[in-house]
C-alpha cells in the first residue's frame, strides 16, 4: 500500500467524518471499557455511540447509554464480549463472526474492531440488514418452515410420549429387526423394577418372551407390517427378579412403526394386564363346574334313591297283590263252605232264630272281607296300569255311559241326576281313568244320600281359560271339617252304614293327580257335598 499523497487528516474535514458515519452501510459503535474495582480487569463496555446503520441493526438510539452486557447479556456466551476485551487489550485489529440469536436479535454478524485510545471502535455488518437475493430469501423461508415443522413435530412427539407415559398400559417402543428397546413407559418399567431395558434387544430385556413365542410375533409384525393382537395370553414372568415366575394373563397389541419414508423401522407394544378378569372368570367357571358337578351328583343320588323307591314300591305292590291274592283263596273257600253249610243244615236248624242270624252275619262278614280284598287288588292293579295314553275324551258321552252303568243304583236310591255339560266339551285324559273318576264321584253321590230327602245330583262341566272344570254336587249327608281332611286318605270310611272299602276316593285322587289334574271338595253336614275336578286343557 503506497503512502497517500495527501494525509487523510487534511483531506477529510471533521464534517466529512461525521457525514461518513451517517452514510456508512456498516454499523459502527464506540464503546469504553468498564473496569472492576481493582482497575485492571474489564468487566463490561459502556455504549457511547451508535451510527445510524448500527442504530437500525440493534434498535438502539445514537447514545443509548448502558453497557454491552447490560443490553446484550448473551454477548458473553456468544464470545462477543471476549472478542471486544481481547481487541482492546491487545490493541490489534481483529475480526469476529457470530450467529447471534438472542436478546431480540437473530442474525449473522461480522465484527471488525480496534482500540482507539480509551475507546474501542467496532464496525459490524448484519446479513439481515443487507438486501437479500431471491434465492437466499427462499432458502431462509424454507429453513424457517422446516424449523417450525420440526418444532411442531417435536411438540407432537412430546405429547405422544406424554400420553404413552401416562397410559395405564404397558407400552414400549422397539427399533430395528432386533427390536431394541427405545422407550418404556413408567407402567412397563414398574412391572420389572429390577431390569433396565433401553438399548437392549427385546429377547434380552424380556427373555421369558422367547419361549412364549412373542419374539416370533415381533418378527412377524416387523416383517409384514401387519399388527398382531393376542387375547388373554398366559405368561410366566420373573417380575421381582427373585427367580420365581408369576402367572399373568395379557392382552397384547403389536403395531408396526414406520419412519418418515414409510419404511418399517420398529414395533409399538401396547399390553395390558387382564389377569384379574381372567382369574375371576376362571373362578366363576370353576364355581359353575363345581355347582354343575354337585347338581349332577345330587341328581345321581336322587336317581338312585328314586330307583330304590321304585323297587321298594314295586315290591310293596307285589306283596300287596300276592297277599290279597293269597287271601282270596281262603275267603272264597269260607264262602263256599258257608254255602255248603246252608245246603246241608236241616231246614228246621237253618231257620232257628239264632242260627239264621249267625249265618246272616257270617255271610255279611265274608262279603265285606271279600270286597275289601277285591278293592285292595284293584288298587295295586291301578298303580300298575294307570299310564295309558292321553287323548281327548268327550265328557258328555262318557257321562251318559256312566249314568247307564249306574242306572240300577240310581234307580234303587230314587235319585235324580241332572247334568249340564256342553256337547263338544273334551278333556285330555286317559279314557279308562277318566271313566273311573266320573264313575266313583257319581256312585259316591248316590251312595251317601241323606235318608230324609230325595237324592239329587248335579253334574256340571265348563271350559275355562286354560282348564276344564267338572263339578259333581249332591244334597247328601255331607262331611264336617275333620272328615273332609281324611276324605282322600286310603281306607278311610267316613260313613259306616254303607258298603265300601274306603279305597275309592283315594284311588281317584291318585288318578287325577297323576294325570296332572286337581280335585277339591266343599261340603257341609246334612246339606251336601261338591267335588270339583280341574283338568288342564
Amino acid at each position: 500500500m503506497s503512502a497517500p499523497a495527501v494525509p487523510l487528516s487534511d483531506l477529510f474535514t471533521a464534517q466529512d467524518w461525521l457525514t461518513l458515519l451517517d452514510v456508512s452501510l456498516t454499523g459502527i459503535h464506540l464503546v469504553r471499557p468498564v473496569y472492576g474495582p481493582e482497575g485492571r480487569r474489564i468487566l463490561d463496555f459502556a455504549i457511547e455511540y451508535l451510527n445510524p446503520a448500527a442504530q437500525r441493526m440493534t434498535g438502539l438510539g445514537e447514545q443509548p447509554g448502558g453497557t454491552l452486557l447490560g443490553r446484550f447479556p448473551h454477548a458473553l456466551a456468544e464470545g462477543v464480549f471476549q472478542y471486544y476485551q481481547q481487541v482492546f487489550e491487545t490493541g490489534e485489529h481483529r475480526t469476529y463472526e457470530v450467529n447471534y440469536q438472542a436478546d431480540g436479535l437473530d442474525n449473522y454478524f461480522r465484527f471488525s474492531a480496534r482500540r482507539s485510545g480509551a475507546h474501542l471502535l467496532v464496525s459490524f455488518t448484519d446479513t439481515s440488514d443487507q438486501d437479500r437475493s431471491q434465492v437466499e430469501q427462499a432458502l431462509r423461508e424454507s429453513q424457517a418452515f422446516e424449523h417450525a415443522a420440526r418444532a411442531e413435530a417435536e411438540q407432537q412427539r412430546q405429547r405422544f410420549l406424554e400420553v404413552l407415559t401416562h397410559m395405564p398400559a404397558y407400552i414400549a417402543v422397539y427399533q430395528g429387526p432386533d427390536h431394541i428397546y427405545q422407550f418404556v413407559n413408567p407402567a412397563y418399567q414398574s412391572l420389572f423394577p429390577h431390569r433396565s431395558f433401553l438399548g437392549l434387544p427385546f429377547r434380552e430385556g424380556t427373555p421369558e418372551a422367547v419361549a412364549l413365542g412373542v419374539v416370533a410375533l415381533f418378527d412377524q409384525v416387523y416383517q409384514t407390517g401387519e399388527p398382531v393382537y393376542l387375547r388373554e395370553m398366559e405368561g410366566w414372568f420373573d417380575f421381582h427378579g427373585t427367580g420365581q415366575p408369576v402367572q399373568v394373563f395379557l392382552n397384547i397389541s403389536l403395531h408396526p412403526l414406520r419412519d418418515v419414508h414409510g419404511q418399517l423401522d420398529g414395533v409399538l407394544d401396547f399390553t395390558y394386564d387382564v389377569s384379574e378378569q381372567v382369574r375371576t372368570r376362571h373362578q366363576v367357571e370353576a364355581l359353575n363346574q363345581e355347582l354343575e358337578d354337585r347338581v349332577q351328583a345330587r341328581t345321581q343320588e336322587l336317581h338312585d334313591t328314586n330307583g330304590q323307591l321304585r323297587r321298594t314300591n314295586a315290591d310293596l305292590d307285589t306283596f300287596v297283590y300276592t297277599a290279597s291274592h293269597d287271601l282270596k283263596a281262603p275267603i272264597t273257600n269260607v264262602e263256599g263252605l258257608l254255602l255248603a253249610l246252608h245246603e246241608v243244615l236241616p231246614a228246621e236248624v237253618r231257620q232257628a232264630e239264632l242260627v239264621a242270624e249267625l249265618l246272616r252275619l257270617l255271610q255279611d262278614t265274608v262279603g265285606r272281607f271279600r270286597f275289601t280284598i277285591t278293592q285292595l287288588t284293584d288298587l295295586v292293579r291301578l298303580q300298575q296300569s294307570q299310564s295309558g295314553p292321553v287323548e281327548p275324551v268327550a265328557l258328555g258321552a262318557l257321562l251318559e255311559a256312566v249314568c247307564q252303568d249306574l242306572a240300577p243304583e240310581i234307580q234303587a236310591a230314587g235319585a235324580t241326576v241332572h247334568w249340564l255339560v256342553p256337547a263338544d266339551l273334551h278333556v285330555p285324559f286317559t279314557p279308562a281313568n277318566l271313566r273311573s273318576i266320573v264313575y266313583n264321584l257319581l256312585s259316591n253321590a248316590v251312595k251317601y244320600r241323606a235318608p230324609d230327602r230325595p237324592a239329587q245330583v248335579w253334574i256340571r262341566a265348563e271350559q275355562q281359560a286354560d282348564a276344564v272344570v267338572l263339578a259333581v254336587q249332591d244334597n247328601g249327608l255331607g262331611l264336617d271339617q275333620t272328615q273332609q281332611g281324611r276324605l282322600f286318605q286310603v281306607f278311610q270310611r267316613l260313613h259306616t252304614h254303607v258298603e265300601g272299602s274306603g279305597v275309592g276316593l283315594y284311588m281317584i285322587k291318585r288318578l287325577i293327580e297323576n294325570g296332572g289334574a286337581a280335585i277339591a271338595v266343599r261340603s257341609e253336614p246334612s246339606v251336601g257335598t261338591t267335588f270339583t275336578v280341574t283338568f288342564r286343557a
Partner: protein
Amino acid sequence: MPLLSSVLLVDDDRTANFLHKLLVTTMGIAAQVLVAEDGQQALDTLAKASAPPALILLDLNMPVLNGVDFLKRYAQLPLASPRPVIALLSSSDYSLDHARSQHLLVDAYLIKPLTREKIQGVLQQCFPQ
C-alpha cells in the same frame, strides 16, 4: 239220574276239592268224580282213565303245572272223543280275564266260589240235551 259219566276236579286246594266234590255229588250230575291236585296229576289221571271225563273243572292257579300250562299240554295230546267240556276256575276275575285273552281251549270261565247255579249254567250251555 246222572247226566255225565265222570267229572274231573283239578285244584291244589283240598277244601276247594272237598266243596266241589260235595257240590257235584249233591247235585247228582255225574256217575264218577275224579280228583287231581295239580295239572300234572290231572294229566296222569287222564292217561289212566278208561274213558275221558265229560267235564273238567280246572283251577287256574296251581303249583307244579298250573291251569294254563295244563291246557297247553293237553292240547298236544291226541284228541279225545267225545272231547271233555273244560271250565276254568279262579277266585280272581282279573286272572280269569287274563286267561280269557289267551284263546285257550276252554268252554267256560267261572269265578270262585263255585255254586249250584254256576254249574247248572255250564251244563245248560254245553250239554243242551
